[in-house]
């Protein structure tokens, strides 16, 4: 009976280990709240979220993160405007048009894009894109919302592209053949059959891509310009949420108001991405691709 009892033990052990993920997630939430909540002894939730001024080191300090939230939302939207069409189109190209040989080259390229360290993308934004934008658009600072959005798009594209491709690829061939048999062109088949059939997967991909953009730190820290003001133009510098945390943690005294405020920003950021994930989960579950039935 010995090996049978080992088997039982191993089973329980693996279950215990598998619980680590959920434990870590809970711990992350716990510590964010534990260190973030105390800020609300000094400021109401409303003033924190909608306050216009972020002067954490002044005396008295202002902890309004509205400009930071707007900064995050703006860069995410602008990067989405770039990354969604590019990512989806590349995915369509890969799944439908590219010959296997070409796809075999393009796919690793997309994977390498995904693996490019964010600090290098931010660095590139600083030293190459910023001076370029400054010259071309004749603006005072090259480190701005547009620059950061461009760089974020670069990070979101591979996520969007590879998830989209999976979704498009899993559209049953029978569906496509049916469309071809009716005399539709390849493009018509793509637009009228393939994309509708994989729409839920595409939406999930887009949401997860944007979620990656909103949570990305180094790029916005290095290329967004860092001004905690509500931007008036696409070429204004902004200071998205993650950038604030990363830039200021070093100077925030341990368990000071500022320190707690930064953790509270972490909560906001966590909630943002959490909602994105739930939404993606919901869409992919609710509108699951069920072959023919999804049309």
């Amino acid at each position, binding site marked *: 009976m010995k*090996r*049978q009892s*080992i*088997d039982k033990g191993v*089973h329980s052990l*693996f279950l215990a*280990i598998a619980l*680590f*993920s*959920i434990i*870590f*997630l809970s711990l*992350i939430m716990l*510590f*964010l709240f534990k*260190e973030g909540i105390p800020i609300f002894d000094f400021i109401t939730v409303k003033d924190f979220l909608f306050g216009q001024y972020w002067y954490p080191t002044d005396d008295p300090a202002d902890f309004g993160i509205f400009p930071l939230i707007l900064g995050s939302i703006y860069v995410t939207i602008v990067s989405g405007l770039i990354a969604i069409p*590019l990512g989806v*189109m*590349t995915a*369509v*190209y890969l799944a439908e*048009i590219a010959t296997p040989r070409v796809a075999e080259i*393009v796919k*690793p*390229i*997309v994977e*390498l*894009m995904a*693996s*490019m*360290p*964010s*600090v*290098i993308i*931010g*660095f*590139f934004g*600083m*030293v*190459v894109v910023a001076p370029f934008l400054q010259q071309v658009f004749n603006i005072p600072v090259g480190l701005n919302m547009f620059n950061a959005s461009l760089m974020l798009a*670069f990070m979101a594209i591979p996520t969007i592209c590879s998830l989209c491709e999976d979704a498009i690829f899993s559209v049953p061939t029978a569906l496509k053949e049916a469309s071809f048999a009716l005399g539709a062109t*390849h*493009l018509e088949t793509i637009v009228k059959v393939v994309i509708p059939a994989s729409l839920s997967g595409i939406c999930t991909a887009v949401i*997860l891509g944007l*979620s990656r953009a*909103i*949570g*990305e*730190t*180094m790029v916005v820290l*290095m290329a967004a310009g860092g001004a905690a003001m509500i931007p008036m133009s696409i070429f204004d510098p902004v200071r998205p949420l993650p950038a604030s*945390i*990363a830039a200021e*943690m070093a100077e925030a005294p341990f368990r000071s108001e500022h320190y707690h405020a930064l953790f509270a920003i*972490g909560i906001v*950021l966590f909630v943002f*991405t*959490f909602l*994105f*994930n739930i939404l993606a989960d919901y869409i992919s579950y609710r509108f699951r691709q069920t072959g023919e039935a999804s049309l």
Partner: protein
Amino acid sequence: MKNRRKTVQKIWFLLLRLAALLNGAALLLIVYFILSRGFTAISWEFLTKAPENSMTEGGILPCIAGTIGLCLVTIMAALPIGIASAIYLNEYSGKGKIVRIIRLGINNLAGVPSIVFGLFGLAFFCIVLDMGVSLAAGGLTLAIMTLPVIIGASEEALKTVPDTYREASLAMGATQWQTIRKIVLPAAFPGILTGSILGISRAAGETAPIMYTGAVFFTPNLPDSIFDEVMALPYHIYVLATAGTNIEATRHLQYGTALVLIVLVFGMNLTAIILRSKMRKKLRI
């Protein structure tokens, strides 16, 4: 009519092709810049010396060592946990509630922003567990971040092992653990390996999670123990580029460090990609 449809299709396909091309071009552009400008900075000294003169001269050895050290800690923590979790999910679990919860945890962990991992690592590992800013704290923070990637990759690899292997083994009176250890894991090993390399390469390039948990501005010493603070390549780039003593004059060091980081990360990725395509070819035969 027919011609018009054909033309529309041609135009669209051209656009799609251009989109794909644009991605490739963007990647190439970045790599080209880093490569062409970083190349001149690379020398034997650069790779084997510590930074000197307030980090305006010298090399990046402590950063290389630090990044490798962080990766090792990450591997040691994330690999066993990740593979065991994947085994549980793929081999043992049915469709119960626990599995739903575990999967929810993994999915959401995958979506947590990297800076939030940094905050957590700071509050938990550095402060509560009293590790301070150290190789251990930084590596563990990275490990938690990498966990979903490794679990995902391992599960994928386990799924490619045909069920007939499992059935044959069980039908001979092997226990489930024997089946997993002797049949399933060996068959899934190459897939797990490539997935793990991809996960670790991501950890190697991350900055935000280690900024306040493992990496410091400057320390000329190589780490002796896992409770030492370290320098790390990505953080070094950030520091030199934004807060160095003389940002403009150290550009070549920044490019050089970036080049080393890219080579490291892409090297791991290409290894994984090549391994994987070899594996696929072998499976097809």
